[in-house]
């Protein structure tokens, strides 16, 4: 009974993503999708993965993390460097390895940052994650990476950076990495599909994690730390698991982002990006994965779709943010929603909406 209900719920989320993919793909192949919109598809996948993974930390382990862009950044750069080094490999296995490397490196950073950060609580934790995100960004900003016949060269300034003529400079400090996307010319048309698959994989991991022994332990540390310890739950361990898995998945989002861009610049991974992802999570409903997805799609596409309104664009965007927040969180709106649910779908769904 309980089992079936959550499984059903998870299935609805998967089906929703797949249905959205099918609809968009049909529209795109019949030419009903504008160039502008089709350019948004992959970034939407990127931000969906980021929002779902951030929800694991914010919604399920109950810690406010403001450094999510830092992990995306690490994943993006680690995987791009790999793709550039291994440019002789066939593109499909190369991309798969790039995703794994992005996730692994982001996870390692998750561990390194998690050890000091998770000792803190509440606002302090938020501020320190914010700082770590900026530190990561600034370190990569001065990093030079190149490869030649002698092997890998890493330097922290252009003066010390010497790559032989037969080699290539991959990461050039603040100039970033260029041309990663051109390494995947043959996959170009499938990037949206790849993005959707990665969204599904992320959902699979997070949903299954949450509905397992580990997930219950994670949520117990959120609801009551002292009680969790009293029943023998190692609070640090489970906060860490949530933090690291979230970082790894953010890394995956970064990989997708990096491989879809012709220019990868570190300045995009600033704290605005972290806040943006947090906005998607909060407005979609903390702890609701489906909500995160819906909020990301609407809020990412909206500013672009509103271009026709020119200068009023951000005003309308702000109003939509407020309306969404009220719709999701105001008690009156929630009552209304559950009444509507009851009316249209019968009494059964009442609890779910509440």
């Amino acid at each position, binding site marked *: 009974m309980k089992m079936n209900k959550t499984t059903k719920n998870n299935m609805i989320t998967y089906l929703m993503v797949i249905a959205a993919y099918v609809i968009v793909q049909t529209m795109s192949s019949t030419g009903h999708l504008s160039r502008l919109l089709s350019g948004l598809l992959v970034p939407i996948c990127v931000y969906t993965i980021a929002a779902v993974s951030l929800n694991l930390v914010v919604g399920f382990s109950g810690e406010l993390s403001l450094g999510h862009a830092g992990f995306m950044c690490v994943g993006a750069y680690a995987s791009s460097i790999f793709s550039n080094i291994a440019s002789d490999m066939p593109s499909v296995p190369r991309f798969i390895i790039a995703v794994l490397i992005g996730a692994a490196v982001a996870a390692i950073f998750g561990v390194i940052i998690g050890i000091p950060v998770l000792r803190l609580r509440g606002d302090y934790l938020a501020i320190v994650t914010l700082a770590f995100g900026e530190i990561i960004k600034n370190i990569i900003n001065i990093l030079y990476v190149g490869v030649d016949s002698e092997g890998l060269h890493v330097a922290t300034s252009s003066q010390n950076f010497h790559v032989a003529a037969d080699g290539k400079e991959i990461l050039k400090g603040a100039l970033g990495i260029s041309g990663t996307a051109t390494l995947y010319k043959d996959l170009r048309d499938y990037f949206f599909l790849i993005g959707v698959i990665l969204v599904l994989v992320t959902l699979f991991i997070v949903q299954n994690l949450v509905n*397992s022994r580990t997930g219950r332990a994670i949520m117990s540390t959120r*609801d009551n730390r002292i009680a969790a310890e009293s*029943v023998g739950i190692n609070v640090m361990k489970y906060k860490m698991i949530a933090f690291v898995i979230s970082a790894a998945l953010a890394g995956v989002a970064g990989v997708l982002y990096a491989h879809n861009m012709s220019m990868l610049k570190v300045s995009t991974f600033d704290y605005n990006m972290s806040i943006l992802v947090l906005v998607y999570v909060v407005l979609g409903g903390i702890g609701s994965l489906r909500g995160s997805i819906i909020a990301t799609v609407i809020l990412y596409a909206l500013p672009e779709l509103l271009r026709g309104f020119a200068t009023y664009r951000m005003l309308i965007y702000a109003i939509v943010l407020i309306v969404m927040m009220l719709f999701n969180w105001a008690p009156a709106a929630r009552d209304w929603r559950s009444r509507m649910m009851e009316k249209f779908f019968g009494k059964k769904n009442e609890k779910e909406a509440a």
Partner: protein
Amino acid sequence: MAMLEVKNLAIQFGGLRAVDNFHISIEKGQLYGLIGPNGAGKTTVFNLLTGVYKPNEGVIKLDGVDITGKNTIEINKAGIARTFQNIRLFKGLSVLDNVKVGLHNQNSYDTFTGIFRLPRYFKVEKAMNERAMEILKVFDLDKEADLLAGNLPYGKQRKLEIARALATDPKLLLLDEPAAGMNPNETQELMDTIRFVRDHFDMTILLIEHDMRLVGGICEELTVLNFGQVLIQGETSTVLNDPAVITAYLGE
């Protein structure tokens, strides 16, 4: 051998000796009461027993094993479970999941198994569900299994906390004011439940309580604490009629 043996326990907060020279000896299967006026240090004793505070002096032995100075998690694994004076449930989890969190260390599979739904996941989850429902049934909470713990009425939240503590399969159960905020009917029902838990789970129970009807009704032995020190120890009827106890509670 006694289930819980505490000798010379003391803790100091700054200049205040909150608990001093505390000693207690509880036999297996006993229902033991810890009473005393407000601020006497009862909850501090619980916090010392469960490793929330580290004692400055003294020895705590559970079933012959020295557990002094261990942390909360180790102590829970060693066999002490507790409830809290102000209810501490996992409010965002269902009633069933609250108990399943209690079963966390009994039924184990790793995170990887959980994510990729390996066969062990289904096997262990099934066993956990069955065990959790069994425990919930004892507390007559099985019908509310799918509700969020935070939505339960107060009396049932208290019961759920005991159920969760029992799920950790303890040797000794500590109840911190289980009847606080309950009406006389609920208290009566709680007394039956506590007795039933003792018999059904073969449990040793130490409880803090202000409700003298409950204490007098179910506790076999009592320790009275006053200003952090043991005032008197012994059989319930003797202790409750002791002039020193009456003075401690009511004043001169």
